[in-house]
């Protein structure tokens, strides 16, 4: 798992991004114990944006997000996350797509 995760970081390094600093477009609702949906995102997010912190809560770093919407279809219905697109011009900038 750790090996696969490091490989995905190498993949994201190939991509172009314009990060909207301080304005994360996806937010995780504060929680004590993560739901099953949130936990599934640790593996399911193709950009490995979701990670568990030392307190056992799921956190997101959106810098490498490829804006696919997978986490939205999984965890927005339960209210676990709030999902928006980045502001115009920001986020991933595909060269090939």
């Amino acid at each position, binding site marked *: 798992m750790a090996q*696969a995760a490091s490989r995905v970081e190498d993949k994201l390094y190939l991509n172009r991004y314009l990060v909207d600093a301080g304005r994360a477009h996806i937010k995780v609702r504060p929680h004590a114990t993560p739901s099953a949906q949130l936990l599934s995102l640790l593996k*399911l997010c193709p950009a490995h944006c979701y990670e568990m912190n030392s307190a056992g809560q799921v956190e997101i770093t959106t810098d490498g997000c*490829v804006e696919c919407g*997978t986490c939205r*279809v999984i965890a927005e219905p339960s209210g676990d996350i709030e999902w928006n697109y*980045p502001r115009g011009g920001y986020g991933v900038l595909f060269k090939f797509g």
Partner: protein
Amino acid sequence: MIEERFDAIVVGAGMAGNAAALTLAQRGLKVLQLERGEYSGSKNVQGAILYADMLEKLIPDFREDAPLERHLIEQRFWMMDDNSHTGLHYRSDDFNEEKPNRYTIIRAQFDKWFSKKVQEAGAVVLCETTVTELLQDARGKVIGVRTDRKNGQVGTDVVVLAEGVNGLLGTRAGLRNRPDPSKVALAVKEMHFLPQETLEARFNLKGDEGAVIEAVGTISEGMTGMGFIYTNRESISLGIGCLVSDFERTGQTPYGLLEKFKSHPSVKGLIEGSEVKEYAAHLIPEGGYKAIPQLFGDGWVVVGDAAQLNNAVHREGSNLAMTSGRLAAETIFQIKSRRDPMTKENLALYRKMLEDSFVMKDLKKYRNMPELLHIRAQNFFLTYPQLVSKAMKEFVRVDGVTKAEKEKATLRSFLAARSIKGIIGDAFNFARAWR
């Protein structure tokens, strides 16, 4: 509020949005197209195969200057187990025709070209603008959009929602539901660059010829899914996708699956020594006919992936997107020409035009296929590929075992894995869903 008013606003500049904006502008309507990327294409992800027929209906002479990669002369379907693939392979020189039917394209480049055509036709294309909300009157009629620009509200008679599979506007306004995890696939893809001669030698191609490989089997770990390898001019688009609900169930990682596909002995040699230049992920609508939402209402229509218009069996999406965008635009033009209002009643013509086209007819034909493949994923994506591989291995290996014994062993392995009732049931259900 931007003072200027538009006959129509198109949200999104993918295949559906560009087809709609182009058609509306060609018919002389005042069109505003809004795109959140820095240009049309910078947020768009596809395999990608372009079907000429649907584009010809919009831009008849597109071959003159569109950025096309290769025209396809060869199609391979692979059924894979961990060490082998059993293939169905079709290659024909007849596909080397004056006006080829299928091409590989690179979306960021193709869409940029498409958008130029939209602008030349007279549409106002505003990029780097995210639409955040649909503006509705007290009766729910859509009357405009709110964007993330300063004073960014714009009024219109009709909004064409071409916002993609993960469009937020329509779902937030209650016009359709958010896609269910069992009705969308997550695909991940890499762009592998190789010297042109190397690529052509590996796939036995000359000039602009191209080949496509689509693969199912143990690569998807029992999930409903497919891998693909498409040849571009000097790159290979390689990816794999599976249902989101299957990923959720199995705990597989999409990048883990991609790495496994790339390291398969049948794939490894094709991409050896390549330079990877991009990694992308995208959702694909997989629910088929039964997942199509309400397509029109007072002051709005929805087109393309946002409307779930994707033929998963034939892996066609962009052509359905282009056709739906064009038909939505034709509908709006007809209503406008009669000086009628953009009511739900009048916009119902869009649905009717779609029903009369290949879009709905094809999707209707396969209306039961998604459920069949999703519920019986283990059989179709794991058990059968393994059995077929074993049968083929027995068939070609010459080792002194009599042919009669080999056939018996093969039959026994099929019966042990699925039982005679199971096999007949799978075949029957598959035939019925295909019909």
